[in-house]
């Protein structure tokens, strides 16, 4: 291996924040032309390490040495690192929705002719760059009019416009569907064959296993090990072991379902799109949930699963057209979220940062936010009860935070998700709808959240899980509905559920029932 030249070496990097050692003595060696994966649980220090590398934390604010292309680099800011050919593509895309693809690609880097932007050249170069990343669009198309997958490609094209030598991708496939993810991974392989070095940070271990040459694993701000995928015969379990520091015997906790009677039923549910009234987002959908049952909803992105869940949850999405909800044998009408909460429904949204939590709030008040009446006496909130409730859930869900006074915005994704779960468990719901409950959450926390879901079901609650990860649905759910283009296309019992059967139902309108 020593014959392959080293592109980057980070030597015993230590980065301290007031009171917290985010990185201690971390080493990273990236060989030229490889795909190097960095794995670790949330909070392990991956992002911090990349920020050190890209100059977000300038030289002098950390200890250690960065040797890049054979000489020590002291980046003072992002511009300096970009000049050296290190480009980082963040999970949250830095694109401007109202501007065109070409404008975005050259933002801050516009080709000029006599002081003015040379749009002819820009468009020509944009087309060239877009071809390199396999993006077939008119460069004048606005960013907001293309999908997330294509937006990701624009980001990469933007990186190439800066003459990238080392491309860093932070969770590049987190928001992408299967097809787009596959395309992206192929693209990365293509770059490798053309000598571009990539660092990829991802929670999707199967992808890492498939694509990476080397894997560096971080845990609690320290380097655990660096694995050579081919030489060491690395598989997913091996990576997980390194990340969590122990063997995870199973990805799902043990659970014996105790399924009762049907208590919740949605019949002939029809909902129209909130803006374009001719678009039907829920087409005559019907489903049932039993007590103690975990019901999955599988479907491709945009299939209408979230829309269904939110429209049932107090008509918080779209325009209600027709359909009934029956709970415990009686028809109920849920005109607002407050109605839904009063009737024992809870909805954990897929995007906890955007619509699930008030990030300015502390854990305490977030926990009780959806049912303030429970801690109110004659209209006055009891701080003691608020604290006790929050503290109880913190302990029960093992939320990692110093106190319940901590801001939720400062927590890691997994812990934020636990706060959201606590918030809805606090409302003591009969039916809990979880939309992508483990998105962006690392392996260890995932396992815990599965456990919580199962415990809720064991308490006799109905749980609905919407997920894009088929193994998660198959591992967790007792029964799975498939959704395609706003209609329920199948209902599959756990025993019959395989990725293949689900995928088939998720991509066709033909109904198939196996029970």
């Amino acid at each position, binding site marked *: 291996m020593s014959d392959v030249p080293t592109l980057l070496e980070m030597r015993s990097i230590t980065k301290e*924040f*007031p*009171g917290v050692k985010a990185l201690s003595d971390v080493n990273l060696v990236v060989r030229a032309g490889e795909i190097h994966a960095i794995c670790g649980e949330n909070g392990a220090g991956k992002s911090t390490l990349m920020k050190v590398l890209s100059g977000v934390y300038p030289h002098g604010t950390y200890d250690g040495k960065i040797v890049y292309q054979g000489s020590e680099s002291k980046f003072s800011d992002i511009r300096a690192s970009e000049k050296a050919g290190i480009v980082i593509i963040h999970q949250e895309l830095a694109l401007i929705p109202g501007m065109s693809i070409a404008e975005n690609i050259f933002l801050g880097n516009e080709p000029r002719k006599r002081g003015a932007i040379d749009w002819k050249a820009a468009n020509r170069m944009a087309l060239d760059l877009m071809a390199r990343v396999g993006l077939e669009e008119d460069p004048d198309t606005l960013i907001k009019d293309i999908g997330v997958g294509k937006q990701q490609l624009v980001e990469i094209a933007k990186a190439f416009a800066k003459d990238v030598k080392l491309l860093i991708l932070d969770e590049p496939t987190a928001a992408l569907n299967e097809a787009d993810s596959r395309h992206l991974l192929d693209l990365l392989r293509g770059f490798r064959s053309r000598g571009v070095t990539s660092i990829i940070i991802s929670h999707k271990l199967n992808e890492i296993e498939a694509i990476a040459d080397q894997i560096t694993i971080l845990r609690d701000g320290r380097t655990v090990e660096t694995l050579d995928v081919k030489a060491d015969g690395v598989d997913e379990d091996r990576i997980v072991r390194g990340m969590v520091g122990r063997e995870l015997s199973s990805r799902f906790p043990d659970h014996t379902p105790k399924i009762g009677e049907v208590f919740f039923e949605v019949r002939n549910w029809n909902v129209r799109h909130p803006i374009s009234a001719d678009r039907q987002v829920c087409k005559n959908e019907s489903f049932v949930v039993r007590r103690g049952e975990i019901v999955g909803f599988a479907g491709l992105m945009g299939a209408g699963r979230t829309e269904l869940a939110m429209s049932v*949850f*107090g008509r*918080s999405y779209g325009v209600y057209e027709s359909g009934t909800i029956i709970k415990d044998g009686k028809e109920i009408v849920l005109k*607002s*979220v*407050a109605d*839904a*909460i009063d009737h024992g429904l809870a*909805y954990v*949204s897929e995007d906890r940062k*955007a*619509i*699930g*939590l*008030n*990030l*300015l*709030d*502390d854990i305490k*008040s977030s926990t009780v*936010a*959806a*049912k*303030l*009446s429970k801690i*109110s006496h004659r*209209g*006055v*909130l009891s*701080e*003691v009860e608020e*604290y*006790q409730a929050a*503290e109880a859930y913190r302990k029960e869900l093992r939320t990692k935070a*110093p*106190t*319940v*006074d901590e801001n939720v915005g400062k927590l890691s994704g997994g812990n934020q998700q636990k706060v959201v779960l606590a*918030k809805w468990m606090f409302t003591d719901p009969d039916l809990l709808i979880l939309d992508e409950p483990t998105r962006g959450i690392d392996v260890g926390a995932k396992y815990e959240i599965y456990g919580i879901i199962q415990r809720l079901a064991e308490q006799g609650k109905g749980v609905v899980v919407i997920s894009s990860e088929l193994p998660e649905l198959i591992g967790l759910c007792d029964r799975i509905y498939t959704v395609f283009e706003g209609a329920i296309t199948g209902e599959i019992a756990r025993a019959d559920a395989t990725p293949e059967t689900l995928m088939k139902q998720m991509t066709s309108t033909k109904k198939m029932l196996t029970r």
Partner: protein
Amino acid sequence: MSRLKDLQKNLFGGTTSNARQFGMIFTLVAIVVLFQILTDGLTLRSDNLIALFQQNSYILILAIGMLMVIVAGHIDLSVGSVAAFAGILVAKSMTEWDLPWPAAIVFGLAIGAIIGAWQGFWVAYIGVPAFIVTLAGMLLFRGGNQYIGNANTIPVPEGFREIGSGFLPEFGPNTGYNNGTLLLGLVAALAVVWRELQARKTRRAMDADPAPMWVSILRMAVMVGVIAFAALRFASGRVGTSFPISGLILVVLVIAYSFYTRNTAGGRHIYAVGGNSRAAELSGVKLKRVNFFVMMNMSVLASLAGMIFVARSAASGPQDGNGWELDAIAAVFIGGAAVAGGIGTISGSIVGGLVMAVLNNGLQLMGVGTDRVQIIKGLVLLLAVAIDVYNKSQGRFSIVGSLMRPFRREDSVPPASPPDAEREPAKAAVSG
């Protein structure tokens, strides 16, 4: 050493908001002391303290409403115009329609409610940004004021003037002080002690060790001392003057609204909407109702402020309300509210308003012209917010917050319950 740590940890609380609040109070105290020295003791003389409260109570009342509007993620530019509009109508109602003054006050509040409902309707139910709605309102009600008043100055009767320029009455034995004010101070002091004991009880209920007894006692002694000082100052004004009625109205409002925003579901909802409106909606918060309420409430308080100003000026004039919105907004932002909403406290805004008020008053006492006063106020506003923004961008909450940070990490229990520090300015307002 450990005692010092104890003190730091427990006296100022540990959460960032507490630390920030402490920073604000510290700034206020520093400015007061500075001017006390620069003006040879005029600043804290009873007649000046009384004047300070009378002059600023209406702006501080506006700041209460503005804080809620800003926390909910809106802004209200129309408060000055609404105040002027309500003021002229109330003045007219008394001089031309012979309404008795108590009825006129109710009438004024009703006008505020109607205007507020109008603005709230556009903001909450139609979804027009509050900036636009209230910009329109600013023109609308300013024009209304001029249309109704013909740009004339309309005097108001004696009884009504009390709410702007009246004082607690003189009664009881001759103690050399105003007895009403002394009584008020006593009540405030008892309230402080009661709260401190209550807080200790609360902390015990939270399974947390309360602060060491001596810290509690020190804290009580400091606050009771401040209250006693202020009460004596206000009570020893010239005979006939004492704690102003307008100040009393302000104190009642501050306590009521602090309680509302902190300890009721309705108050929580305002913060939730400002912090993340979609998340709030999905938690069962009735978004439209909250938005409607904050806008309506603001206009009611604006009309109250307008009436107090008219009462103090003994007449409603065409210049009433000019520029008030800016003073109120400045107070709220100096007091630590976030421009994007979701963050801020009533007490912070009051302290922010007082910082501006003391600055204004102190500079005037020094004979600094309004031109330079405006320059200084502008710089203070910019600096206060800039320091905050800078510190946030550095990953710290504020200078004081960062000072306090080392003490925070080492205690895993919630430190001194937040209401203490939050209420401090309210208490100070009771008396001083």
